[in-house]
């Protein structure tokens, strides 16, 4: 079961793993702000998961050829 809250230490792990892949250098002074915003995002993602999507519920933007 995925955690309801993202622990600060886990948010730090996301930063350490993903930021270098993107080539994004996050300064030490910015890390607390990024951690906080990742925690907010995860809390909202958990809330969004309450929607109960079915396989045929497609994404909103429709590509037109």
């Amino acid at each position, binding site marked *: 079961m995925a955690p309801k809250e993202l622990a600060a230490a886990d948010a730090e792990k996301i930063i350490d793993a993903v930021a270098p892949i993107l*080539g994004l250098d996050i300064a030490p002074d910015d890390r607390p702000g990024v951690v906080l915003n990742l925690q907010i*995002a995860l809390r*909202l993602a958990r809330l*969004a998961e309450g929607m109960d*999507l079915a396989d045929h519920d497609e994404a909103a933007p429709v590509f037109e050829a």
Partner: protein
Amino acid sequence: MTDPTSLAATTIAERVRSGAITARSVAEAHIARIQNLDGKVGAFTAVTRARALAEADAVDARRRAGAPLGALAGVPYAVKNLFDVEGLPTLAGSKINRDHPPASRDAFLIRKLKAADAVLLGALNMGEYAYDFTGENAHDGPSRNPHDLSRMTGGSSGGSGAAAAAGFAPVTLGSDTNGSIRVPASLCGLFGLKPTYGRLSKAGSFPFVGTLDHLGPLARSTADCAAVYDAMRGHDPEDPACRDLPAEPLMPHVNAGIGGLRIARATGYFDRMQTQAATEAVRTVAKVLGAAETEIPHVNEARAAAFLITMAEGGHLHLERLKARAADFDPDTRTRLMAGALLPASMIAMAQRIRRKYREAVLKLFDSVDVILAPATPTVAPPLGSKTFALDGQQVPVRANLGLFTQPFSFIGLPVMAVPVWTSASSLPIGVQVIAPPWREDIAIRVAGHLESAGIASAKVAALA
């Protein structure tokens, strides 16, 4: 003689056309008020004085020659500084864009207003890259609420709210991704129209989240919002989201009344997390309109999904700038965008699927109602610099929560008029959202016009001096 800075746009146009006043005198009066008072307010980042006077003189010359004049003859206006204005760099509230070359031509909507003989006064302050609900800006200073200079205008179209409420321009243009027209309209006591997604061209404006960005007017009356919208209509192939659909003019609907409309106040989510002023405003409006009640399903999930898409798409849009010039961002914007760039893709795929499902659920509601009412903001303008406020007994962040009630409607592109209400709970105004089905701006305008003529919704120029 009436001070032109207190006049409505529609009145100015009428008087300029009839020759009762000149476009030049109107432009000069507004420029003088800006020069005298904007030091206190912080609405403008550039005043295009020479252009304004030249445009006004051209209108006056055409009148003298007996040529026909446009619907907005001599009407002064100003635009959020994410609109391209020929000769100015398009700042979008940032420090970084100051290094951009000046725009080589005006944004589509400015070209439309120019064609209607309106007069551009300048570019307006805004939250950095539109990722903001406060109207504060680390580079240009905050736009201050003209009704109480110690308080926020709301954002991100903060200068747009400040300028119209301060009497610097009867109408301004803003952008609204999650509430950035409706939040400042609410806090500054203005009418604000966010049209249906895809209705007005975004070409020549700096983007934030392409599938959520809308442009529209803020003004001191329903008719002024309608008149400016009418002048800006028209398909533009340069904006891939702009739909080639007929857009009927809104002016004929301003005084059409509410006969036959089924109106309902949104309950549940929209009854919580708000101050007394928000509750009183929406209930007063609902009572006057004889509104029933309706509960919109899945609002929590929808708002969360809008938040995630905004973070991720914003983070991606600015990634190269975050890599190259992180220190030049507003610190409040920087860390949110950085976090957005790091979000897992599955969260965003989920959010886009929620968007479709929520849209279907809300469109179904419109089978039984024509109009939904909801608060525009949870509170009147908070003090400048405040980071949190109390809602339902808990301290919550200002930046994230000022858009609590606007985000669920822009998420699915519905047309909304924010109307200003003055309650017994506060000396400051607060907005109520009038939400209509897609492409039915006319319905939102009818309700706003009715509320205005009933004396329930009203805007005023702040005294300031």
